[in-house]
Each structure stands twice: as structure tokens, then as C-alpha cells.
């Protein structure tokens, strides 16, 4: 092997899923010891391409060369044998297995478990020391934070002696501090001579760590450039195919009286783990209160409690009227009647019924309103008519109300949910991850809508894991960690670093290594959850 042979070379890779052509004739070269970024809109085909490289899917056509030699990657086993490891967007871990068991799964030494486990324990110790990847080998995955789960995924790959590591959107679930830590690990790995492919939507990350970057659009590889020779604006344009505004225009908020008041809210989940531990917040008319935090720190539960589908103690008032937090009257339908609308975090499993048509979905949750009834039956004709109107006004594409929700792209699904919730003219709008998995074009539209609603004097509670989004939309920012509000900040008086530390449970800027403080806080959280888990 000469040192000029690329670590990975793809030639003419094509793949279609039925009528959808996910990858079209793709070529790509990655040199050893480099980090190669891949960016592209949702559905551009990035994950598909990487899954092909990892043998998870089989390409319809095309060739793969690893270290200059043609590799026949027919399944994950052969990819692993070729030295490829992959960390998927959605982790592939067995939740009720220990870390150690997950590490050895599929890479055991022999038919008996004990020797494999013993050896793995040693190797794991060594790897964690070497790459700052510490994680308790005997902990169950379900008790680990997402950040630690990701470490397990990386360890899995390293345990299999991967030389090529693929990471699919690894930072979406991490605090900024954790992301920094991850990049340090990746840096370490690069200096060890490993090759890394990094898929991300965040242009900042591409600029920060990659050596080269490829842009994908509609299944094709549209450009490959040296990172040093490009700019975020250029990359964004390459991705979408037009100029994009990366900032939201917004006037200062005209804040009115408090609408939503939350006092000492507590919630225990079905496993007995306390997820909200005395949350107090206030949202006033005409402002956006942004809740920052890493997924799994109680934001989802906060939305569920406010949305009426999780029990809690404490007090919540809307316009001074207290809401029941348990029993009858504490459900989504009752909340809607009190003027709370809710765009849930997960549009596909909560906000929409995927097999239902768009028009059926436009009344979901409001289907018992008298205006949609005619006698004993639902007034489907009227619902359909109104749906058509909403879809036109919210620029849902295609504007066909009789298509099932699953036939729309993520951004358009989100628009349907937004249209439904905003059109009811609520006093309070709860909105979770408004642009998760939505590409730049749709983000623009959704952000504008949220600001427009704010300007009509509504109280908006925004939950997002994207700090950029929090900064772009919020008039006030609250940070949640481990079921508690760590602090409130005004957006112009803080920065990403401070919020990042708050998100990891660190309230004062530590003198020493921030990573240590973050790790300690995370560990405390994990221990509490594990001890309460029944």
C-alpha cells in the first residue's frame, strides 16, 4: 500500500428504494488519516450511502475500494472485516444489556461468554484511557445518557479494530461540551491514523473539524471541496441550490402580562424515575421563552405535562386559571379548550397519524369540536375544504389534502401540524423541536411563522436542542438539566459556552477542565436515575 492510496473510494454507487432513487452514480474519495464531512438536505441520500458502505444496504450498482483494493461488501460482517465501523444516527444498542455485553455482541471470542467478557473488560479499559472514552462497563444502556451511549457506539467500533469510522449526525443529541469532547476524540483518532467520515447538518462543525467535505443533493454528490477553501455560505448554497438566509429577522418583543405560570412542577415517569424536579417558569404574552437542554433532561416531560398527557404535581395556571394536573380534565382535549396549542416534539409519532390523510390530520385533537360535526357524523366535506385552505396558506407541498401524512417530507409534515395548531388561535403555544429533521428551506418558513405568532401577543414556550435555534427565536432562555431549570438568561447577555455548561449541569464556570465537571454532573444524573429505576 502506498500512502497515496485513498482509504475509501466509491465509484458509481446507485441505490433505489422502489421508485425513490436515493443514490445516483456517486463517486467519493477519502484519504487515510483525514476527517471527511458529508452535508446535504434531509433525504439527500447521505445515510443511505453510508449504510451501503457499511454493508447494511446493498447498492444496486457501483464499486467500493478500501485502502486501494476492491472490497466486496455484502453485509455488515464484511464491512467490519474490512475495518469499517459505523455509529448510526439512531443508536443500535440493546437497551437492557450492559455496556460490556453490547460491546462484545457479534465480536465474541468463542462460544462461551465469560472469557469474552473478561477480555473485553480489559480492552475497554485500555481504549477508554487512550481516547478519553470512559464509561461504566457494567451499566445498562437504558441507564446511560445519550452522550455515553454514543461513546459505547464508538467503543464498539474501536473494539472491532475499525480503521474507518463513520458517524451519522453524531452531535444532534449532545451538549456543546459533549460535542467538543467528541471532536477531541475524533481528533485523537485522526492522529492515530484512522479515517473518519462525519455526516452533519451543522456547517459550523464542518468548518471546525473536517479536512474535506462533500455535498449531496437529491441523491447526487454535487461537490467535494477542501474545507479550508470554502465558507458556510457557499456550502449552504451548494446544499439547497439557492441562496439561504441563515438568520431570522425579528423585532424586539412587546412583552405583556404573564399568561402561563408554572410553579414547582414535579413528574415521576412509569419507571419511578423523577423526570421533573420542581420546575418553575413564566411565559408572558408576546414573548418566546426558549428552553435549551440536551434531550432527556425533562424538556419532553415538561411539554407532556403542559400538553395534558402526563401527570404531575405542582401548579400550572393559564391566564390565572389553574389547570388540573392529574385525573380527568388533565388531558390534551381539555388543554386545548383552555387555549393551549401544542406542536409536539415528534411529529411522526405524536403530532400526526401517519396513515391518515392530510385533511384528517388537520383536525386531529380538535375532531370533537362542534364545528366539524354534522349531526352524529363528522362533517368530512367541511374538514376537507378547510384543510385545502390551510395547506395553501402554509405552503404545504404538494397541496393535496387527500394524500396520507406519510407521503409528505418532514418539513411539509411539520407545516401541517403548525397550520393545525396555529389556526386555532391559542393563547399559549407549546412547541417542541420545531425544525428537527427539517432542511434549511423549511426552517426559514417555520421560524418566520413562530415570530409572526409571537407578534400577535401569544405566549410561546419553545423547546429545542439546537442552540442556534434557541438563540435565533428566544426572547428569554431557560436551561434545563436533570429535571431542573439551571438558570435563565437573556440571549444578548450570554453565549453558547455558558449555555453549554448549564446544559450539562454546571452552573459556575469551572476553573479546571470543563469536561471533568461535565462528566461529574452527568454521572450524578445517571446514578440518580438508576437508583430510582425499578
Amino acid at each position, binding site marked *: 500500500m502506498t500512502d497515496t492510496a485513498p482509504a475509501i473510494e466509491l465509484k458509481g454507487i446507485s441505490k433505489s428504494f*422502489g421508485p425513490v432513487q436515493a443514490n445516483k452514480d456517486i463517486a467519493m474519495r477519502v484519504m487515510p488519516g483525514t476527517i471527511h464531512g458529508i452535508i446535504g438536505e434531509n433525504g439527500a441520500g447521505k445515510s443511505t450511502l453510508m449504510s451501503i458502505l457499511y454493508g447494511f444496504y446493498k447498492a444496486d450498482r457501483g464499486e467500493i475500494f478500501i485502502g486501494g483494493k476492491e472490497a466486496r461488501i455484502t453485509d455488515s460482517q464484511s464491512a467490519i472485516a474490512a475495518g469499517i465501523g459505523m455509529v448510526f444516527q439512531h443508536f443500535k444498542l440493546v437497551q437492557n444489556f450492559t455496556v460490556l455485553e453490547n460491546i462484545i455482541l457479534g465480536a465474541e471470542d468463542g462460544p462461551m461468554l465469560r472469557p469474552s467478557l473478561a477480555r473485553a473488560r480489559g480492552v475497554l479499559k485500555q481504549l477508554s484511557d487512550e481516547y478519553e472514552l470512559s464509561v461504566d462497563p457494567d451499566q445498562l444502556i437504558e441507564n446511560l445518557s445519550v452522550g455515553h451511549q454514543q461513546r459505547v457506539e464508538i467503543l464498539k467500533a474501536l473494539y472491532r479494530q475499525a480503521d474507518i469510522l463513520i458517524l451519522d449526525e453524531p452531535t444532534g443529541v449532545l451538549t456543546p461540551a459533549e460535542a467538543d469532547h467528541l471532536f477531541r476524540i475524533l481528533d485523537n483518532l485522526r492522529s492515530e491514523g484512522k479515517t473518519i467520515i462525519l455526516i452533519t447538518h451543522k456547517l459550523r462543525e464542518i468548518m471546525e473539524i473536517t479536512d474535506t467535505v462533500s455535498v449531496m443533493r437529491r441523491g447526487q454528490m454535487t461537490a467535494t471541496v477542501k474545507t479550508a477553501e470554502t465558507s458556510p455560505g457557499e456550502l449552504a448554497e451548494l446544499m439547497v441550490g439557492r441562496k439561504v438566509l441563515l438568520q431570522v429577522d425579528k423585532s424586539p418583543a412587546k412583552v405583556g402580562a404573564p399568561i402561563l405560570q408554572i410553579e414547582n412542577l414535579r413528574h415521576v415517569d412509569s419507571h419511578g424515575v423523577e423526570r421533573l424536579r420542581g420546575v418553575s417558569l413564566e411565559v408572558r404574552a408576546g414573548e418566546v421563552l426558549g428552553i435549551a437542554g440536551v434531550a432527556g433532561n425533562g424538556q419532553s416531560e415538561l411539554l407532556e405535562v403542559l400538553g*395534558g*398527557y402526563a401527570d404531575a404535581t405542582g401548579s400550572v395556571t393559564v391566564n390565572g386559571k389553574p389547570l388540573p394536573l392529574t385525573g380527568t380534565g388533565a388531558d*390534551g382535549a381539555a388543554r386545548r379548550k383552555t387555549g393551549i396549542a401544542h406542536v409536539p416534539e415528534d411529529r411522526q409519532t405524536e403530532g400526526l397519524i401517519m396513515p391518515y390523510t392530510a385533511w384528517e390530520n388537520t383536525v386531529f385533537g380538535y375532531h370533537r369540536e362542534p364545528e366539524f360535526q354534522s349531526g352524529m357524523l*363528522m362533517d368530512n366535506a367541511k374538514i376537507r375544504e378547510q384543510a385545502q385552505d390551510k395547506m395553501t396558506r402554509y405552503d404545504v407541498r404538494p397541496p393535496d389534502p387527500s394524500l396520507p401524512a406519510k407521503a409528505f417530507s418532514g418539513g411539509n409534515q411539520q407545516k401541517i401540524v403548525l397550520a393545525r395548531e396555529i389556526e386555532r388561535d391559542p393563547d399559549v403555544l407549546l412547541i417542541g423541536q420545531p425544525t428537527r429533521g427539517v432542511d434549511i428551506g423549511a426552517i426559514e418558513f417555520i421560524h418566520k411563522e413562530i415570530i409572526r405568532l409571537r407578534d400577535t401577543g401569544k405566549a410561546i414556550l419553545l423547546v429545542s436542542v439546537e442552540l442556534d435555534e434557541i438563540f435565533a427565536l428566544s426572547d428569554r432562555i431557560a436551561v434545563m438539566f436533570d429535571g431542573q431549570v439551571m438558570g435563565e438568561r437573556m440571549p444578548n447577555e450570554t453565549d453558547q459556552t455558558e449555555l453549554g455548561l448549564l446544559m450539562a449541569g454546571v452552573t459556575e464556570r469551572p476553573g479546571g477542565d470543563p469536561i471533568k465537571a461535565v462528566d461529574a454532573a452527568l454521572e450524578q444524573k445517571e446514578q440518580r436515575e438508576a437508583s430510582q429505576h425499578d
Partner: protein
Amino acid sequence: MDKMPAWADAVLVPLISILLAAILSALVILAIGENPVEAFNLMVEGALMRSAGWGYTLYYTTNFIFTGLCAAVAFHAKMFNIGGEGQAMIGGLGVALVCLFIPFPHWTVALLVAIVAAGAFGALWALIPAYLQAKRGSHIVITTIMFNFIASAVLNYVLVNLLRPQGAMDPATARFPEATQLPTFQDMFATADNPLFRGSPANVTFFLAVLACVAFWFLMWRTRLGYEIRAFGHSESAVKYAGISPVRITIVAMLISGGLAGMMALNTTMGEAERLVMNATEGAGFIGIAVALMGRSHPVGIFLAALLFGFLYQGGAELALWTNIPRELITVIQALVILFTGALDNMVRMPLERLFVALGRKDA
């Protein structure tokens, strides 16, 4: 995702599946030394070529429509109600009680009251499993299976110890009074010179079953309740978000499901036997599951699938009459139909999809 036109999925896939089941059945018939063509002719002749044959076919069809709808309601709510059998048994008890103990002036009144009784008893029998599923998370498949056994014991106790007339051998009730007897197809359609449907058990409950299909369609696709049941079936988390109570939907859907199963007893108990016998349900509860699956939980599909199974039952009876083929052959054929249309339908669908995608490419 439109890989295949909807009509192909709804019509072509089941048709090919049935064909495969038929071919395999023919092989089984050959293997036991009989002639499959002759057997098939006999079945068609006996089930479809005579009005009395139709009378039987439609009688069975009625049963399967009710149990099929029963399974379908549960399917829409993503539940597997294997308890149609027990619910129908207990529904029969309801029918028997009102028929025996209320002096009815006319069958129409009797039918109306019996519908309520059958539905209520069947629903009641579904209530406990539903409640346990909704509140305690006890798996409804297991609890409904258990409730089938328990229903059988209850019915046995009631028939042997309470409702059996003195001295009668049969674990069965006395014959219902004249006024509760439902008009059969013969009563309705036979004329002096054209003795249609002679002696066959099809009766007015067939129309009730058809009505139930229509009502089912309205319920599922035109009412709020149906909207909520289907939504619940697609996504439990979404339903919670919308403020629809999963507990309520689980229980209501199962009550409707059990009620429909119970109404099957109108056909067997009031319409045919005119008394309650021990094994009046005869596995129709299980067939209902296959019917609902084949019919894609849609009333039109359920009607057609029920007709197919009705034909199988009646055709099978004719086979038993005129050949030496053991009756278990029919069980085997049913098993094959369920297997191919229910469990192995992807075996047919996957190649078909590929075919349609290929054809689509050529067109494009």
C-alpha cells in the same frame, strides 16, 4: 410509497393467495386418494348451484360477518381479540335468557330485545379482558383465550344445571317459544310453486349482518369514535397527545367487538337452532379473525371473505355427505386459506410489487 396500485393490493393479492391455498388443498385431496376436481365440483354444486345450498352458505356467512367485524373493530384499535368465540357463546346465553323468559308478542320485538341482549352479553364478556388490557397491561391475546375457556365452563354450568329442561339429555335449553322464531329465507322467499331455500337456516339475521357491515363503515369512517379508534390503532402516543383516552378507546372498542361477536348468536341460536346448545359457536370466532384479515378489516372485504368461508363450510358439508373424505379436510383447507391470505400474503405481495415497479419503470 405507491409501489403497487391499491386495487392490486386489495384484490389481486388475496385472489392469488386463495388460489395457492386451493392448489395446496387439491394436493392434499390427491394425497388421501380422492379426486380434487370432483371434490371442487361437489362443493360448488352443493353450495352455490341450489337455493338451499345458498341458504346454508349465507347462514355461515352471517356468522362469519359478525365474528369478522368483531375481529376487525379490535384490529382497527390494534388489538387482537381471540375471544370472539367466548363472546359469542355468552351472547347466546343472553339471547336464550330473553327468548325463554320474556313473553314476546311478535318476532320483531323479540329480535330487537335479543339484539340488545346478545350485544350486551357479548360486550360484557369482552369487558374484563379489555379492562385488564387498558388498566393493567395484561396481554389481551392471552386473556381472551382464557375467557374462551371460562365461557365454555360457564355455559356448560348454566346449560347442565340451570336451563336444561327436566329429563332432557342435551346440555341445551328448551326450544324457544314460537313467537321468538325468526323468519327464514324460506319463509320470506319461497312461493307455493317455487320452494326456494327449502329447509335452509339462512334467516333475517343475514340482513342484520349486512346492516352491521354498513353501520361498521359509518362507525369507522364517519364518526368521531371511529376516527379515534383508528387513530389509536395507528399510534398510541399520538392519541395521548390529542387527548383521546387510550383506556376509553381500548374498552369501547372491545365492547363493540364483543357485542358484534355476541350478535352472531342471534343467527345460530335464535335463527337456526331455536334453542341454545353447548357448541353453537363452532370455531366461528377463530374464523372471524381470518375473515377480518382477508377482508383487510373493511366491511366490503369482510363480507366477501365471510362469503368465501361460508362457501367452504357449506361445500365441505356437501363433500362429507357424498364422499368418504373425512371432515378434517375442511379444517386443513381453512388452515391453508388462513395461512396464505393471512400470514404468507407477503409471499405474493413482494413479487407482485416488484412486478409493478418494473412495469412502472417501463411506462415512465
